């Protein structure tokens, strides 16, 4: 992870205050507040329908907020959506390129709609081709490009006009791991050159590469902070990873133990979150064995973002009326 630039005193690149969007009765985004600093890679995490895309669409000036304010690059998204569009780049999970145009023609088209003049286009075209590693493929149809190249070309088209702020909506879907790494290296480089990046993702390993993340659930901001901070949700609550040959049954039994707060399935293993206190792994192991479960191993694990994610969703469904300001993860223990 690169240096976290959040300590800088500059005004925020993205500043969101109480942003809300309703569709009829349905509240898609509910009083969301956060800010992103210049050059920061800010991860937006949440399940499908959590409100990530709606938030991005409002920040890009595509959708009017019902209430609340947001400024992007210092421009109010409600008052001057076109001004916002000039300052941002946007790339979606679909890598929306024109399939029937060549690499060059796609670059030319997007350069055109961003209003680049001929000289600038030549310069930026060279940059994008280099960045995406597309040299020699300039006349290939976008349709015929492999996933990683399509993705990098889409990124290149989104930053042709050198935006200060880049929105990436699930940018690595359906791309092989090697291309994902390569893509994140490009994102890091952009961030280092001062571009602010707001990225939504399902992949929690990608979230680890962000300077800060925000967890959004049911339209509300559930947690915000560095990944280390966010994991503090589990401070004082150990997580045990239980491996058995009958995970589902073990999960059912563990749920009945008083010291177990909740359980979830992680691949073939079961993660059990213990209540605060001095519950020990050995005690749980022997009780499980006593109930006839063949325990292969039972070990304390460091919480992953996935644990955090599941925990947050779980606590939200138990307290639906929770206040919606982004709770700082560390503040939860106080």
């Amino acid at each position: 992870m690169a240096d976290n630039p959040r300590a800088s005193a500059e005004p925020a690149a993205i500043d969101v205050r109480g942003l809300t969007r309703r569709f009829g009765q349905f509240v898609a985004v509910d009083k969301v507040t956060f800010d992103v600093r210049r050059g920061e890679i800010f991860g937006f995490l949440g399940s499908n329908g959590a409100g990530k895309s709606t938030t991005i669409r409002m920040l890009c000036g595509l959708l009017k907020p019902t209430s609340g304010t947001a400024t992007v690059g210092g421009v109010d998204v409600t008052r001057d959506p076109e001004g916002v569009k000039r300052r941002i780049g946007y790339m979606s999970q679909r890598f929306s390129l024109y399939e029937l145009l060549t690499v060059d023609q796609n670059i030319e088209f997007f350069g055109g709609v961003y209003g680049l003049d001929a000289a600038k286009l030549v310069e930026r075209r060279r940059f994008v081709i280099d960045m995406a590693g597309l040299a020699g493929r300039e006349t290939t149809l976008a349709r015929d490009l492999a996933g990683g190249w399509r993705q990098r070309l889409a990124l290149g088209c989104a930053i042709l006009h050198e935006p200060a702020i880049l929105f990436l909506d699930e940018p690595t879907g359906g791309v092989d791991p090697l291309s994902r790494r390569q893509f994140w290296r490009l994102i890091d480089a952009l961030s280092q050159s001062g571009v602010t990046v707001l990225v939504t993702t399902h992949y929690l390993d990608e979230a680890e590469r962000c300077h800060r993340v925000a967890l959004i659930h049911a339209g509300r901001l559930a947690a915000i902070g560095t990944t280390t901070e966010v994991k503090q949700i589990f401070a004082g609550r150990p997580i045990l990873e239980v491996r058995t040959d009958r995970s589902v049954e073990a999960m059912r039994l563990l749920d009945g133990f008083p010291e177990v707060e909740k359980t979830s399935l992680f691949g073939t293993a079961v993660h059990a979150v213990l209540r605060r206190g001095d519950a020990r792994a050995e005690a749980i192991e022997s009780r499980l064995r006593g109930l006839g479960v063949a325990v292969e191993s039972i070990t304390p694990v460091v919480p992953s973002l996935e644990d955090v994610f599941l925990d947050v969703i779980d606590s939200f469904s138990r307290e639906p009326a929770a206040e919606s300001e982004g709770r700082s993860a560390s503040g939860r223990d106080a």
Partner: protein
Amino acid sequence: MRKALAVYRKELRQIRRDRRTLTTIVFVPAFFLLLYGYALNFDIRHIALAVQDRDGTPQSRALVSAFVNSGYFDRVADVYSPAELDRLLDLNTARAALVIPEGFSRDLLNGRMPQVQFLINGDNANTATTVMGYAGNIARSAGATIASDSVEPPAAPVSVEPRIWYNPELRSTLFLVPGLIAYILMITAVISTSLSIVREKESGTMEQVRMAPIDTFSFVVGKSIPYFFISLASAALIIFAAMLLFGLPMRGNWLALLLALSLFIAGALGTGLLISTVAETQQVAFQAAMLSSFLPTLMLSGFIFPISSMPYALQLITHIVPARYFLIALRGIVLKGTPLRLLWPQMVALSIYALLMLTFSSVRLARERR
């Protein structure tokens, strides 16, 4: 301007590489022209005719010859009894029958108006009406000729001398081609415009373009100009093909024709844009285009079915079908050489249609982009 140009160039390049759209735009018009030009033909020829000549005189034979020589009728049978006649008509071996009674030549030569019986199978009302017209004309003129070849001059005090203007041979192809042009323009303009935008919605490029600082006007202009010229070229292709294959005349002013075509195409493009703001999938867009453009153009424009013979309520509806005005203008310019100044009501109607559609769709598109 640069932005509109970028959209325009991109659209042209896409069309060039998109086989399906190209086929729709180039081959569908050609296919329709041939199909409708040759198959959809209201001229009726070679009607199977049964003859019962009970007079058996040179005069009655002359009348039968007149029917056969007209080219409309093929003499398929000679019958000698009414029962046999019934059977042939029932079997559909004959579609029509001519019965000449005894005393036909006697009456004719005595200056009395003889009566002949003409039976038509009326299961196809359109054909029957036309055949009846042919038969009446043949009988009248043949009767007069036969009579004047004989002793007495014909006794008809008033005679109608029909002169058919603009399309003297009454070839329905000439009447159909203008309608065909309207129909084909509806396909190329409405379908291809709406599909091209909806396809962008489906592939996500529309969203990408919306994120860019490009105004609705540049987008609409860049997007529709290629289809405007393609539609115009398509219309020119049909007109020249119809001139070559079917002898379509061009009696009017080419500029007037261009104006009528342009106004109609502009309206059709607007309709396509409007559909694309409503439809989210290509299938929905296609169906919307069918219902809103094809069917009215086919049924309610006077393309095939004359408006004057529709029920009153339907006639009222035809006033909002743009192809109705376009057809009057087109038939006027191409077939009759009507000067533009006499076609101003149609031109105004077409302008209103184009203006309405383009404004409405731009407003919707701008709102959708918000």
